[in-house]
């Protein structure tokens, strides 16, 4: 076999792996963008946008309590619009085919009893690719440090 033939075989063997890697990079970018869109949409009470990225069976845990998609959207709808108080400090995305796990920390600047308060949270979000788009199927956050 000629050298050109060998190179062709090698290229064909490597193509699927390269294509898979490119797909993972694209998926990771899409999920990162959705994470940021989530915070922005929430701060603007954009329920319609959140409705599109939250799966109907979303499993959302806050302070140990299970909250449904409907309850979450209702809370956003009834809240006052506010500038984004959430600052994402770090975020890593791990891709597992049609699923992506996001782990990170964010800083939440809020006011309680007239006093400014800053809390740090560790979050874990699970995204699944369904019907042509990424959907959030699970989300949870825990305060960092006891």
């Amino acid at each position, binding site marked *: 076999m000629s050298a050109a033939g060998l190179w062709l075989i090698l290229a064909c063997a490597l193509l699927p792996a390269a294509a898979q890697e490119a797909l993972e990079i694209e998926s990771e970018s899409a999920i990162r963008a959705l994470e940021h869109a989530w915070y922005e949409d929430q701060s603007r009470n954009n329920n319609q946008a959140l409705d599109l990225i939250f799966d109907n069976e979303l499993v959302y845990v806050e*302070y140990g309590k299970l909250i449904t998609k409907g309850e979450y959207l209702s809370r956003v709808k009834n809240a006052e619009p506010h500038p984004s108080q959430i600052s994402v400090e770090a975020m890593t995305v791990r891709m597992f085919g049609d699923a992506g796990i996001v782990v990170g920390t964010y800083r939440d600047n809020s006011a309680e009893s007239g006093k400014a308060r800053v809390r740090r949270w560790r979050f874990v979000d699970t995204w699944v690719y369904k019907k042509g788009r990424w959907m959030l199927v*699970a989300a949870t956050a*825990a305060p960092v440090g006891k």
Partner: protein
Amino acid sequence: MKSKIAALEGLWNQAYKSGDVKALETLLDNSIVLVNDDGSVQTKLEFLATVKPAASPASSQEQQVVPESMSVHVFGNTAIATGVFRAKGVENGKSYVRRERFIDTWLLKGERWVCVATDATPIVH
């Protein structure tokens, strides 16, 4: 499918209580993200290093983990198990009882389900 995940959750619970590291190695993906109730993160190796046989001297490992409830949602090759457990144990010489909600993400890899993420959050009353 849901019953399969529920069974795996039960196996995990049993393996943890009995200190069965080999069983846990099979259930947990090598890239699993383990988030504890204080927000700290552990790798699989770090977590397994903390698992002690049930008969060993007191450590930070829960001595009793009692599941109270669990539900499973399946999304193709991904499953989310969430529920509540009550943990009783002794840590640094002090006994404790905690109720926590967990979320575990399972993934079908080949023919086997493995856990790729787990998070426990204290239930705040």
